[in-house]
């Protein structure tokens, strides 16, 4: 099988992972939507329709090979060794436990102390000292959850397990049937533990929380060159997403031999401490500011944009922090030194209110980009802080630049900017919100956007792009091709999908761009 191969954002897309939203979207309520990072609820059936239209366009009409993430997960579960499965399920149950940052931190420190004491004892040739305190047994709730998931494995219900891991488990649903109705699940519902009363009064809804953001696959990982960067999600509600993708990319044969770029700290011999084990990440967001501690390493795929094989931009925001950027830059520098190449890295510190670089900037071709103008206007009241540095032998030190586009021009990438929302400031704000700057580039000059971004599409038309409505392709026999000459913008429906604040670029995780 082809290895991973994504050296720019614009080369012809030929293979990608997507996820069709399922019951995880239904399981979001008005009261929990903010926890799940949504402003509004989605009408699931219509979101699925919109996603199906997108899949048909990419798969059937453009011949792009698409993997459905849930299928990949199910296949991986089936092919994994019992140990690998058990580890995944144990971690799932561990992540699901209520957040108790101090206790987790303490447990982590105690583990390290125990290791040091053992090492010390070995060095001194003495018997190891007894542990400081015996490890706490997992709660019964966590135990039953893990056993329920394990039960599905022993029944061979891998498809059901895959959907459970994505869709979560509702409390007190008498209609769980067949494979999903295990004795452990019944125990979870009737468990008489210490918080039984408060669970009833607070109306807690889940034994296992759903993952409604999973459809934005590009946030969870990015392929850089022939390796993958697994994201370290800042949002509590999204942490299991990386866990699942980690499992798939380390175990599924499609990813055999695929290496990783580390974005987290080294730890105890491992190149990257898995982020669910990092004690700093056990923090919950600050109640007042809603922000996570900035000294922890967070990275989301939406902040990584590859402009050219030797030119990468990383956005820094509450969702992507400097420790992760520093670590990635270190790994890239080492690789550049090895290969005797040089890599230009742009670090773009985004102004408040912008979490992802790909929500304000999209590369369309080697000569054009769409951007959200207020962020990229030099010396504007809310503009981005641009830092350029070179990695590799003789690389230049970090330096501030006033204009991203001017600096890119000096690097030989001369981009014509097309404004998201056109010229009108109000339209710009509205269409940035509708993901108008989050286009998916399928091949140079061949891009896809939501229909609700009228003014952006008009600006593209003004720049010579032919406007194609997806209905004409789906229902009126219009043909499109990635290899034919010409520029076009394909408008797809996204009334529901856009409400999760992700555009086409966020929905699709490219694995191979070699066209």
């Amino acid at each position, binding site marked *: 099988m082809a290895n991973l191969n994504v050296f720019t954002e614009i080369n012809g897309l030929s293979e990608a992972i997507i996820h069709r939203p399922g019951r995880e979207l239904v399981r979001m309520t008005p009261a929990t939507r903010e926890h799940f990072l949504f402003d509004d609820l989605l009408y699931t059936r219509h979101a699925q329709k919109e996603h199906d239209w997108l899949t048909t366009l990419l798969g059937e009409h453009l011949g792009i090979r698409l993997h459905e993430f849930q299928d990949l997960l199910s296949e991986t579960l089936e092919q994994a060794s019992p140990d690998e499965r058990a580890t995944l399920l144990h971690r799932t149950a561990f992540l699901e436990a209520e957040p108790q940052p101090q206790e987790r931190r303490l447990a982590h420190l105690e583990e390290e102390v125990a290791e040091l004491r053992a090492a010390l004892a070995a060095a001194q040739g003495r018997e190891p000292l007894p542990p400081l305190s015996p490890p706490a047994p997992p709660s019964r709730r966590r135990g039953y959850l893990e056993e329920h998931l394990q039960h599905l494995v022993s029944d061979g219900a891998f498809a059901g397990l895959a959907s459970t891991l994505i869709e979560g488990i509702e409390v007190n649903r008498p209609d769980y049937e067949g494979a999903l109705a295990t004795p452990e699940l019944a125990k979870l519902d009737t468990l008489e533990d210490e918080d039984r009363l408060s669970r009833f009064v607070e109306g807690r809804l889940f034994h296992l929380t759903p993952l409604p953001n999973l459809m934005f696959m590009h946030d969870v990982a990015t392929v850089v060159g022939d390796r993958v960067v697994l994201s370290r999600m800042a949002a509590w509600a999204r942490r299991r997403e990386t866990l699942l993708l980690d499992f798939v990319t380390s175990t599924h044969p499609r990813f055999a031999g695929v290496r990783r770029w580390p974005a987290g700290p080294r730890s105890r011999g491992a190149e990257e401490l898995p982020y669910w084990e990092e004690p700093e990440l056990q923090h919950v967001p600050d109640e007042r500011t809603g922000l996570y501690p900035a000294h922890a390493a967070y990275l989301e795929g939406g902040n990584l944009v590859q402009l050219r094989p030797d030119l990468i931009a990383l956005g820094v925001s509450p969702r992507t922090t400097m420790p992760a950027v520093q670590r990635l830059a270190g790994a890239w520098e080492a690789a550049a030194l090895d290969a005797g190449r040089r890599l230009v890295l742009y670090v773009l510190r985004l102004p408040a209110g912008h979490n992802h670089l790909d929500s304000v900037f999209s590369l369309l071709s080697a000569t054009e980009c769409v951007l959200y103008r207020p962020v990229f206007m030099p010396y504007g009241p809310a503009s981005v802080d641009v830092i350029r540095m070179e990695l590799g032998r003789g690389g230049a030190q970090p330096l501030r630049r006033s204009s991203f586009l001017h600096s890119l021009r000096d690097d030989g990438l001369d981009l014509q900017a097309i404004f998201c929302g056109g010229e009108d400031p109000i339209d710009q704000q509205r269409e940035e919100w509708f993901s108008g700057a989050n286009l998916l580039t399928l091949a140079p000059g061949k891009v896809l956007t939501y229909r*609700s971004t009228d003014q952006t599409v008009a600006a593209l038309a003004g720049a010579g792009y032919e406007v194609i409505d997806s209905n004409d392709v789906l229902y009126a026999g219009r043909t499109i091709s990635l290899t034919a000459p010409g520029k076009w913008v394909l408008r797809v429906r996204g009334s*529901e999908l856009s409400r999760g604040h992700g555009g086409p670029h966020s929905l699709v995780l490219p694995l191979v761009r070699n066209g």
Partner: protein
Amino acid sequence: MSSLSITSEIGPLRKILLHRPGEEIRRMTPGMRQQLLFDDILYLDLARREHEAFSRLMTIVAPPDGVLEVADLLVDILADELVRRRLIDDVCVLEGSSEDVRYLLLDQAPADLALRLLAGWEKPVASGSLAGALDTYPYTLPPIPNMMFMRDPAVVIGEGIVLAQMARPARRREPLLMRYIFTQHPLFAAGGAEPPLWFDRLQSEQIRSLRSTGGRDPFTVEGGDILVVRPDLLLVGASERTSNEGIDMLARELRRRGSPVRTIYAVIMPKQRSTMHLDTIFTFLSHDECLVYPPLILPGGGEQVGIVRLSRDARGALRAEPEHRSLVACLQAELGRPIHAIPCGGTSRLYQDREQWTDGANAFALRPGLILGYERNEQTFQALWAAGYQLLVQEDLIDWLPDPAEPAGGHWFENTARIAEIRAHPERKYAIKISGLELSRARGGPRCMTMPLERAPYEM
């Protein structure tokens, strides 16, 4: 003789006032959406298409000339120079606008002025001051995007009108525009016979005197909280938007100005956005059916609303007595027959919460047992089906057929045979699923979007 007549929630519809979302929706920014009371911004093209379908469905029961557009009526009254000046003065006082804005508005022709009164005015790029240049507030005069929820700024009760006193500054201009329409437009004020204003805190002097309190008035009443059960009986929600003081004032004013209303059940609701008006948790479907959000309305729901009955004693003094029973029980006693409560979202709390949020309980009845609801509330339709409703999809009745040759062109298809069949069977129960991908974003459902002016009398 007033041309207005509303004596029930369900009598066959004869005349109705709507507002098709317009430029005011496109002038709303993500940053301003919460101040303008939206959770999300709307894609105008689709919102307009959905609303046009909605207004076409009105004519299944109402005559075609019975569906009025508020922007048209506004243009009509602005043709009069005196009305135009007075309205501009009142708007400028209400909004605290500068003299510059007043002159800008005075310069506009009637059609442009109507547009500006709804869509507002953006701030010019160059400003006369540093504070102005750095201010991120985008408007000289803000838009009023909530105008599409015609239910709230004014309500017809019997033959008269209640002009709302809105709780939120973002909506205060709406009832003022309605006041001018109902007092100035020949359709309502022909021959000096203006319809009675049962409740009106928007006279020019009053707007000016409220300036000193920053426009805040403790006596707030919004239309979505008022349900006309019978000519003499109202339900009024004491909600996030309608105050207890407002309901007391409404009761006094209805009496003082000679309305036939004798009894009001005040429904004491939690003051929260998700249940901002009574009609977001309770609406009538037919003479013995209502659609309810179970947690707040049904016994054992966990958060039941309180009920206080407001009536007059033998000497005419106002009495407020707490009712220690559910809203449905009160109605059964008052109407003397069983009332069936159909649960919004069905039996699962998860779906009840989800579908109440997307206005599943906010049905609009075209006639008894012929109702409209958002298609997305699937479990609510399931519950209606179980209660004997035939489910219809909007596209089967009317549909927009785009013209492939012309980008924005197309025409409406109407399934006349199916519509004729519905008209011919008033005894049948139908629930029509309307599409509201964009409309539902604004936290308002089919009932919120309507202001019925006339319904055929119906014996409750």
